């Protein structure tokens, strides 16, 4: 049960990655860095087009769309989700998933609120919140790697557990009146720029994550275990240790997001961040990260954050019912998994036609070539 999501993927099947397999590209063993990057680059160029289309549509819909002020608002509402998307990308690339991030965010927010109400010094609170995040991630990671449980089930469990701890800590209480120094940081721009602090932090983190993922042995090993955890283990990679550390990083990032969230709204309440996990997963999948693991890039995540934020914001400006933006997020998500499959399907139909087989067009769908694993 090492690569749970691979197992879950067993009977559904095609992702962008499989399209790459169609090219006469280099085999997995012979591939150099660039050979591997090629299919990913193509996904990202598609995303660039999407972002541009959204920008054009947005500015056509409202003259305010491409203003600095609007960019600021756009970033403000996306910062925490974007920060959590980075470790989520790594986790999904490694073949696991973490649905508990929103509750880790909520739990950190609750700890922050409770300790502040108890007049703790802010720096000590930050230390405690960081420890809470690390512990939350470690529990996930150890249950997944050492006990050998599917991460989907574990993190659904901790999703409830961590939110439950936030409920116990805070109850119906609301803690507000955080010091202005911090709440200002939550709602104002970094001096001399139009970027909110959370987006600034996201950009710095994105650079670090990109370097780690794409240019270090640690990062490359994440791809290897996402492709085939067993092979990675036999190749001497510390699969369990790496995966555990990814969950810990995710916990820590979610705790950071919790602090930012609390300061932005100047409130710690029990339901802070409810429902964000699925947004985070949606962004990561939109980024071209394969739910089966082994594929994706931080550049894609960056573009997906832009697309996601731009779309939400464009809808907001057009007075679209704000609660219904899920309609568009969901649509985008579906398109992002179907476009590669449709291309595959069309190519398959064309081949089938060339072979002049007498199959009905609906039938081949069930006998498309499959990736051998």
């Amino acid at each position: 049960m090492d690569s749970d999501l691979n197992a879950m993927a067993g009977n559904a099947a095609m992702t962008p990655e499989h399209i790459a397999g169609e090219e006469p590209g280099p085999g997995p063993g012979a591939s150099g860095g660039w050979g591997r990057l090629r299919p990913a680059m193509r996904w990202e160029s598609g995303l660039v087009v999407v972002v541009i289309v959204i920008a054009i549509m947005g500015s056509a819909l409202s003259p305010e769309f491409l203003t600095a002020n609007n960019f600021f608002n756009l970033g403000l509402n996306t910062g925490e989700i974007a920060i959590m998307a980075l470790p989520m990308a790594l986790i999904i690339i490694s073949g696991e998933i973490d649905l508990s991030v929103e509750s880790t965010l909520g739990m950190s927010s609750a700890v922050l609120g409770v300790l502040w109400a108890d007049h703790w010094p802010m720096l000590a609170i930050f230390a405690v919140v960081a420890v809470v995040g690390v512990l939350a991630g470690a529990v996930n990671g150890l249950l997944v790697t050492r006990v050998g449980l599917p991460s989907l089930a574990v993190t659904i469990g901790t999703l409830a557990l961590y939110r439950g701890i936030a409920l116990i800590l805070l109850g119906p209480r609301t803690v507000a009146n955080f010091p202005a120094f911090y709440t200002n940081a939550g709602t104002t721009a970094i001096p001399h720029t139009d970027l909110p602090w959370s987006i600034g932090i996201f950009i710095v983190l994105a650079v670090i994550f990109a370097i780690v993922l794409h240019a270090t042995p640690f990062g490359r090993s994440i791809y290897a275990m996402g492709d085939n955890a067993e092979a990675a283990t036999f190749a001497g990679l510390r699969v369990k240790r790496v995966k555990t550390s990814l969950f810990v990083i995710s916990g820590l990032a979610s705790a950071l997001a919790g602090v930012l969230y609390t300061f932005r709204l100047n409130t710690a309440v029990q339901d802070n961040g409810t429902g964000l996990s699925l947004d985070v997963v949606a962004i990561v999948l939109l980024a071209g990260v394969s739910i089966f693991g082994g594929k994706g890039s931080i550049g894609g995540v960056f573009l997906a954050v832009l697309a996601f934020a731009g779309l939400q914001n464009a809808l907001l400006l057009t007075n679209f019912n704000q609660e219904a933006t899920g309609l568009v997020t969901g649509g985008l998500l579906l398109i992002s998994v179907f476009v590669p499959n449709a291309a595959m399907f069309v190519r398959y139909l064309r081949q089938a036609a060339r072979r002049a087989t007498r199959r009905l067009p609906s039938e081949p769908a069930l006998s498309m070539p499959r990736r051998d694993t």
Partner: protein
Amino acid sequence: MTATLAPPREPGSPASASSRRLAERVFRVREFGIVAVLIVFVAITAAIQPRFLSITNIQFVLVDATIFALLALGETIVVISRNVDLSVGSVLGISAFLTAQLASQAHGLPLPLVFLAGLGIGLGFGAINGLLVSLGRVPSLVVTLATLYIIRGLDVLIVGGSQVVPSSYYPSFLTISKATVGGIPDLAIVVAVVIAVGAYCLRSFRSGRELYAIGSNPDAARLAGIPMGRRIFTAFALSGAIAGVAGVLWASRYGTVDSTAGTSYELQVIAAVVVGGVAIFGGSGSVVGAAIGALLLQTINSALYVLGVSPDWDQAIAGFLLLLAIVLDRFISLRLTASLRRRSARRGQ
């Protein structure tokens, strides 16, 4: 998770072998553990607060648990086939609102038609999920995550800020969840029958067994000639249809319905299914187990309330139990595999 361990053939004296086999059977049944937990839990709660076993309270728990168990039934069918349906909460929500509106505006409409409407709405969305997963060959986690958003978005667009209030229904709609036969809620009886039928179909029908086969090993199932696309499509369609019916019950039970009905219910349903011993990666588990899992989670909620524990503790305890259930399940299946291997090795000598 090793799915179904074939019981080893025991040569030797028939009497001791059969009794041992019986004991083995009882302990190997996954539902056994959870029923034990349920009984212990009810006993402890009732010892502290006898009011917990009052007729009204039991009726309350049963009615709440039936909606939950119904959803767990649908989810189990999907999970057994190594898929997952995250959209049940949204389907329940939209079906609850539309049928509630139907019940409050068309007063002459016979009740079965309202249920049929709920069923149809759910079936439609379930069929879309099924088509996308089986024909589109996209992982169900992604598809149903997307439809979770999309259906909820549709719901919000349709509902807007409005809500349906209980006073606007015709009276018989609200009494669906209150009618009893000999003290047992009608709903509980009907749902128990539905679950029994579901359990029988999954156990004994060819198509039911094929779902387990697909879940245990999709590649082998394909090679064995099982029509995977059709089976998976059916599983999703059923799950959707059940969620649609659950939506009608939800509207009848809670009365007030707005655009948030059933939000994030899907994770609770999956929790119930997993607590009930259904392996999250398919191939193993039963509908009855999932239903008992739902009953257990609902009982815990109610027990905490009766015991005067703040409802703030509900979620932490539910989460903890879910983790405990999967950890225990893991250890039991590991122990079982090990002991079976040891025994067959001994016999081999």
